[in-house]
């Protein structure tokens, strides 16, 4: 078992501050690589961020309406 951290990726060349939209996966959900984890808005664009891991989402560190920066810890995934 390993805990992998999910950090906010850089999606926009113009901005490092993203409006956190909503979680698609909930703590306890099984996630696979490529599954959409959450949605953010920046520069009038809605982006869906996919998991880079197979495992179980264990923690959400941010919530709808939060401002998150590139590199912020947003979630943890427990991998096998």
């Amino acid at each position, binding site marked *: 078992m390993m805990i992998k951290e999910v950090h906010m*990726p850089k999606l926009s060349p113009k901005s490092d501050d993203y409006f956190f*939209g909503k979680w698609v996966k909930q703590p306890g959900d099984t996630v696979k690589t490529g599954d959409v984890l959450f949605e953010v808005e920046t520069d009038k664009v809605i982006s869906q961020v996919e998991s880079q891991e197979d495992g179980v989402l264990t923690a959400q560190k941010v919530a709808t309406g939060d401002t998150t920066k590139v590199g912020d810890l947003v979630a943890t995934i427990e991998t096998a």
Partner: protein
Amino acid sequence: MIYFPLTSLDVSYNFAAEYYLMTQKHLQEPAFMVWATTPTIMLGKYQELENEVNTQFTSEHHIALVRRLSGGGTIYTDTGGCQFTLITPDNSGQIDFDDGLSLLSDALTTIGIHTKTDSRNDLIVDGLKVSGSAQYMTPGYRLHHGSLLFDANLDWLAKSLHADPIKLQAKRIQSVRQRTVNLKSQQPTWSTETFKTNLINQLVNSTHAKVQNFSVQESKIIQQLADNLFVNSAESQPKTQPYDHQQKVYVKGAGLIQVGYNLDNHDQIAAVQLNGDFFSNLEPQQFEKALVGTPHQKSAVTTVLQQQLQQAPIVGMTAESLAELLF
């Protein structure tokens, strides 16, 4: 490039047509549409209706309300303008407005309408906005859509978007107010229909687009998507939490635990709430009362939590692991 003609003036149907192309058509090449709406207010995905719209005016004038799947601010559209949609297969996830805006502004220039791009990816004429753009992405595809004001009712636009500032709610995307102008001033003899036809013809010619119509079966699917995703979408919004910080965890043996908290100016816990489906006799109010006023330091918080959990343990949860949710 594929051009999909879209003659519907129903904004929900037209947004559903976009979504159908994004998620079910499995496009292997870019596609575009040009379409229009009855008088309509379009909110950005994470905007609050009450923050942006004079709902009394829109109700009195039967102006449709809808929420986009894209970001950005609120706009007004009617048959005096048109909407454009460009869908591009793209796995990069990178934001890019340049391709779509170049395609559009080049086509406009060719038909004798001159615009410039500003820092918000809007098209402007003499500093006044004539077109706004927004995007959303799904795995494998990027959608860029926007508006073009040709002969829109700017009086209704201004009145619809005049929201009561007292109702402003935080933790939402706020619109950026910009002055607008119609493009008709550059081609005063054209009707909006002439403008739209000329624009479509130029886009089809410049991209050598194939024309493809939606089948009857596809139209049925699109109508279902419209009903499920867009009709009544303006009123619905994911709830924001009332706390500045929130964490939610799943702990094996304990279940889901959610903690929200605020800090005061002295970095002490000012308010806290504990929710979840964990098994415990813990009294949430007593737990919250015990934590308020505690310095926001892990050792201090852990000490308070140890005392609380001694009185009422949470199955599968230690004070240390619970304290992690407050940092």
